[in-house]
């Protein structure tokens, strides 16, 4: 690449990044500005309230239950998704290769079915869940696993494709390992970063989920934020901002995990 073109490219890059960066940062800045507004001048009151968990519990019970539910849903969704997908995907690769295509189709199907449509069909299913277990918001996890299926499947599939599952597991089996050992001590450590990225994606998605929870009248973070937006706007905007930044930090940290794997593969 010649010098003139490289300079032109760098200029183009800066213009695009600065202009779009402004477009993306302005609403975030506006949120920050909004939360520090007072009758005259600025105040950090909203943020002080937010930093004090006990005060939130007392003054905003909906918000605190919403936060707790969302965190529980996020953790449970990630775990359930991994328990459901990883063994099945490994098993299909090893024993039922003809099932790979149908399974991929099933996992990507939720992309074609909008969450709002899923809600319509989920209502009777959740009537049964409520009847069999109870109506706790935690069971939204079942629907969330379906929502994260396409993203998790892609991440795990990429991870499994990068290693030779068949050879690894046959080697372990010939040394006397059972299926549990193969999965837990051979396959899992080899797809660690794929597992991590699918789990983080699930967490980010669940923390942002609103449609299903709201229409099935369950509680989670976004439902609480939306409710609070009608009474105490500043707090709800502040919580939105925190959730957004938290998710960003999570995925930014993830970019380093993924990067390490890539570079180690290049080195080998």
């Amino acid at each position, binding site marked *: 690449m010649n010098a003139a*073109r490289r300079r032109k490219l760098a200029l*183009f*890059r800066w213009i*695009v*990044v600065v202009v*779009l960066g402004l*477009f*993306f940062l*302005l*609403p*975030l800045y*506006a*949120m920050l*500005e*909004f939360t520090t507004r007072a009758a005259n001048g600025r105040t950090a009151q909203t943020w002080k309230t937010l930093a004090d968990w006990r005060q939130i519990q007392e003054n905003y019970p909906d918000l605190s239950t919403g936060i707790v539910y969302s965190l529980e849903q996020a953790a449970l969704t990630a775990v359930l998704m991994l328990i*459901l997908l990883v063994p*099945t995907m490994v*098993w299909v690769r090893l*024993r*039922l*290769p*003809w*099932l790979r295509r149908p399974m991929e189709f*099933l996992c990507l199907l*939720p*992309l*074609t*079915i*909008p*969450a*709002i*449509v*899923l*809600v*319509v*069909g*989920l*209502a*009777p*299913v959740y009537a049964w869940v409520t009847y069999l277990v109870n109506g706790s918001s935690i069971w939204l996890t079942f629907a969330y696993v*379906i929502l994260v299926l396409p993203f998790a499947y892609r991440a795990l599939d990429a991870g499994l494709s990068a290693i030779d599952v068949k050879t690894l597991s046959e080697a372990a089996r010939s040394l006397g390992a059972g299926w549990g050992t193969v999965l837990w001590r051979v396959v899992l450590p080899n797809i660690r970063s794929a597992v991590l990225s699918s789990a983080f*994606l699930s967490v980010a998605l669940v923390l*942002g989920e*609103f*449609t299903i929870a*709201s*229409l099935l009248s369950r509680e989670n973070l*976004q439902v609480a*934020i*939306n409710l609070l*937006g009608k009474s105490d706007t500043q707090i709800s*905007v502040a919580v*939105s901002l925190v959730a*957004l930044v938290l998710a*960003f930090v999570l*995925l*930014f940290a993830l*970019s380093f995990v993924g*990067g390490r794997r890539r*570079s180690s593969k290049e080195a080998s």
Partner: protein
Amino acid sequence: MTRPTPPPAPGGGVGRSRLRSLPSLLGVVPFGAYVVIFLIIPTLVVAIGAFTANPEDGGGVTLANIKALGERQVLDAFVFSISLSAASALMGAILGALLAYAVATAKPNGMLRRVVTSACAVLAQFGGVTLAFAFLATIGLTGFITLYLQNHFDVNIFSGGVWLFELPGLTLVYTYFQIPLMVIVFLPALDGIRPQWREAAESLGGSTWQYWRLVGGPLLAPAFLGSTLLLFANAFSAYATAAALVSQGSPIVPLQIRNALTSEVLLGQQNVGKALALGMVVVVAIVMWLYALLQRRTSRWLG
């Protein structure tokens, strides 16, 4: 079976051949059962409900719900949803492609790429309520920019009506999550472009314009179109942002579904809601099918 039968191993030969048939399938039963309960059954509920009369009318097969899709109000919602999705998909695709190109030409493991890709992953997923609030705080009636322009330049951005809740406003808000999604889905295609192709074009005397028109453009066109379709489907399915932003009326289809689900005024509209939902699935399914077609074309060149 693609694998040839292995010679019977001492001690384990009989068990292996038996394992391969029925018991192997048992391994996928938990996953299969889960998907049937929480994905297949809900889909069937929607599909069957769309063609079933409401219980008040005695049930039975009917086309009345589908006919209800032809009502003025519903048609308007579909037209509005489709124009909103198309406008925001186009805006998002063009701006997102520019940003993706800026990132693709930067250092592969550099800070810019890391920050942009993780920010995009968050913003593409995290729309919803947060986004609605962010824009209310920015260009709402007491938003930061609204007030700033009013106080410093005496300009009222809403002098021509509150456009934030109409097509232009919603398009702007939707663009905020469309650009990041475009970066995520279009970046792999840009990464697949090899510098050697550019060098080859240059060594044959081609200019930058000729390279983009004759080599880069045609190579990227299927990926670009496919990504735009995906953005369209994404906007068409979006519910949370509009639900948190628009409190009166239901201009888009997802909000109409909410209406049909929760409506107290129009009793017995549940199955019309299912017909609306089926209508959405049909639109998204067509779009995703086209996307898959283009994707296959893309992967032939830009793996």
